[in-house]
């Protein structure tokens, strides 16, 4: 009697309270005993950022199937906010039952894989091999449910290509860029000769594209730092500083000037993961020339993507795992793709006609579903990224930027990077 009354009032509070996070957090500190009764009403909190495509309708579907579950969805504005929140509370209290983690800081989270709940065996094999491998820790525990990935094609301005005397139809451009990075930069030289303008949006996106195709970049799994001795990294740096820098409009992405240039035609190509399509159409809504070609220099490349994780000390670990399982199942991820353009990492999703038949009106009705599926299959290498990856990569990007800005020459800037890395 007593406990029933308590339970009922607890449910009322939970259902009523918008700040259910706090409740979950408090309960989480209490030991997190999973409830024996599967029908017991519970509130699950899920924390994401940007737009995962988890609309209220999608979550309502789950709540209809599981009447005892109430889902509270909290969205952070950007992944940086989520990252700060995640590491300040992980292992303590206050995290949601399901927390989204971006690939950029997923390796940092994997350091604490023992604080995350393990995914059930039934979901293994759902994802692309490399996506799943990155979420499996040294003890073989799978602790992340893959959501989306960022297979890259090349976005280009058909009108500017035509003006430069280059092929401008999708197939023609795909043929043009079919080859290695040297070939990509050769085309950039041609474009510059014809128009006097840079073809590439930013030198650092080329660096990112190349580095994302190298398996061991800055560190090796045994912890050896190879950053400054790695011939592949040095070759990438030289190629970028010698050939991409003069052909790029900007050093890096995401500056105000860079955003403005998507509309004013200062550059003609961008390396384009699926989620970049929305960035372009959002920032250059009146430009009609943008298109996407089914090609990427030197094979395939992935940029970005996220995971869902379940903190181990949460109040409803089992129920949270079930929800994460459901959300990252191929059917739901395809719906998320329709909602927000987040390209699935689940193998089965690539057979779904909703995905394969998807087209993008802004990009000249390009069959984006088909193109991105093929780009996803072309990804063969998943770079090994440990927690220090972004520190090294960030510093190398700064080195490229210094050359681009003319602050330091190629060799000096490399030496500065070497010195910086040694101080880490």
């Amino acid at each position, binding site marked *: 009697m007593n406990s029933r009354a308590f339970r009922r009032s607890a449910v009322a509070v939970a259902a009523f309270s918008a700040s259910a996070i706090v409740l979950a957090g408090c309960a989480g500190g209490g030991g997190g005993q999973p409830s024996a009764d599967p029908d017991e009403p519970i509130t699950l909190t899920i924390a994401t950022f940007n737009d995962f495509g988890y609309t209220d309708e999608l979550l309502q579907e789950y709540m209809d199937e599981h009447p005892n579950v109430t889902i509270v969805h909290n969205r952070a504005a950007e992944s940086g906010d989520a990252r*700060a929140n995640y*590491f*300040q509370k*992980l*292992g*303590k209290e206050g995290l949601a039952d399901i927390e989204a983690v971006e690939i950029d800081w997923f390796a*940092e989270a994997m*350091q*604490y894989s023992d*604080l995350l709940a393990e995914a059930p065996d039934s979901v293994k094999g759902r994802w692309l091999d490399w996506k799943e491998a990155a979420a499996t820790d040294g003890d073989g525990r799978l602790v992340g449910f893959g959501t989306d990935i960022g297979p890259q094609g090349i976005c280009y301005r058909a009108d500017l290509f035509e003006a430069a005397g280059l092929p401008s139809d999708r197939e023609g451009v795909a043929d043009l860029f079919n080859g290695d990075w040297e070939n990509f930069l050769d085309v950039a030289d041609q474009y510059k000769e014809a128009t006097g303008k840079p073809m590439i949006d930013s030198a650092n996106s080329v660096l990112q594209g190349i580095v994302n195709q190298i398996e061991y970049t800055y560190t090796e799994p045994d912890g050896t730092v190879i950053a400054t001795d790695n011939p592949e990294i040095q070759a990438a740096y030289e190629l970028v500083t010698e050939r991409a820098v003069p052909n790029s409009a900007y*050093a*890096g992405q*995401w*500056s*105000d*000037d860079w955003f*403005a240039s998507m509309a004013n035609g*200062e550059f003609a190509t961008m390396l384009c993961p699926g989620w970049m399509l929305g960035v372009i159409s959002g920032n250059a809504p009146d430009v009609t020339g943008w298109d996407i070609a089914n090609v990427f220099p030197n094979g395939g490349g992935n940029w970005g993507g996220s995971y869902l994780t379940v903190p181990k000390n949460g109040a409803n670990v089992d129920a949270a795992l079930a929800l994460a399982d459901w959300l990252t199942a191929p059917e739901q991820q395809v719906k998320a793709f329709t909602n927000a353009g987040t390209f699935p990492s689940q193998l089965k999703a690539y057979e779904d006609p909703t995905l394969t038949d998807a087209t993008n009106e802004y990009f000249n009705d390009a069959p984006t579903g088909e193109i991105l599926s093929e780009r996803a299959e072309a990804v063969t290498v998943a770079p090994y990224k440990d927690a220090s990856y972004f*520190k090294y990569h*960030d510093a190398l*990007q*700064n*080195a490229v*930027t*210094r050359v681009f*800005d*003319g*602050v*330091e020459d190629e060799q000096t800037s490399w030496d*500065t990077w070497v*010195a*910086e890395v040694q*101080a880490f």
Partner: protein
Amino acid sequence: MTSTATRPAASGPADRPSPERQPRVISFSHRVSKWDLKFSPYLYISPFFIVFAIVGLFPIAYTAVISFQNWDLVRNSGEFVGFDQYIWILQNPQFWTALRNTFSIFLLSTVPQLILAVFIAAMLDRNIRSKTFWRMGVLLPYVMAPVAVALIFSNMFGDNHGLVNNILTDIGLQPIPWHKDPFWSHVAIATMVNFRWTGYNALILLAAMQAIPRDYYEAATVDGAGAFRQFTAITVPSLRPTLIFVIITSTIGGLQIFDEPRMYDNTGEGGAAQQWLTITLFLYNIGWREWNFGRAAALAWILFLIILVIGLISLAVTRRLVRDEGGRGVTAPRRKGFRR
């Protein structure tokens, strides 16, 4: 001066004997009221000190503890490493670049800001029409959100499509490399700081100026002193205590400058070659980008010591400068006081 000389004679001994002369009926309520008299002032000010101990003193001490450790934020534990974190900071060239940038931005902002603030305050102190409107007007930038200010200025100081560079190229000049050259990036950031704080300081100085007795100015006018002479001989010397306050607070603020350099570009890391990396920004990068709170805590303590030293230096310098400059101006009324 005159007041300190007269106070002991007037107040002290005359007041003190009165409680003792009262009849010695020590009732409980009497005792309570005695305690009340003795302790309640401390009780009334205690909330500040209790809160300060919790949110100020404890974190400061805890930071010191963390700064000697290799701290893991998530597991909330660390191993003792002695002064390693301090040594790492002091040996890192980025720290010295950050120190240089901080001082450069501090000088570029504080000096023009104070000169301008004194000037604006002097103007507002004169008889102008619609005083309140102008006074509120100078405070307007201060109430704007720093992020909004940074957005406006980042539009102005864009390298390629910025307002300033567009104007410069239109009239045939070279565009300024706002985000490449350290000096120009400091100028841009200092401009944002000045925009925000000049009006605030001007209002504080204005309040101090209005407290200066008008007789001085009348006497000076009779003596034939011009407006500029009156300003240097009367206004500036009388502002001394306020100027010290304003200089110390802007020194502390200037050395902790964070919002503006952080918002200066989209990455917020202080530039590829650390052109505008300040100490606080460096601290933030170490702490919240790399999660290395041991090093961040060590840097926080180094910054604390730097501010302490600079604060003392600027206090000493200000006291000296303002007294020496204004000595002659104030001496006349003072001497009068002594003769009386």
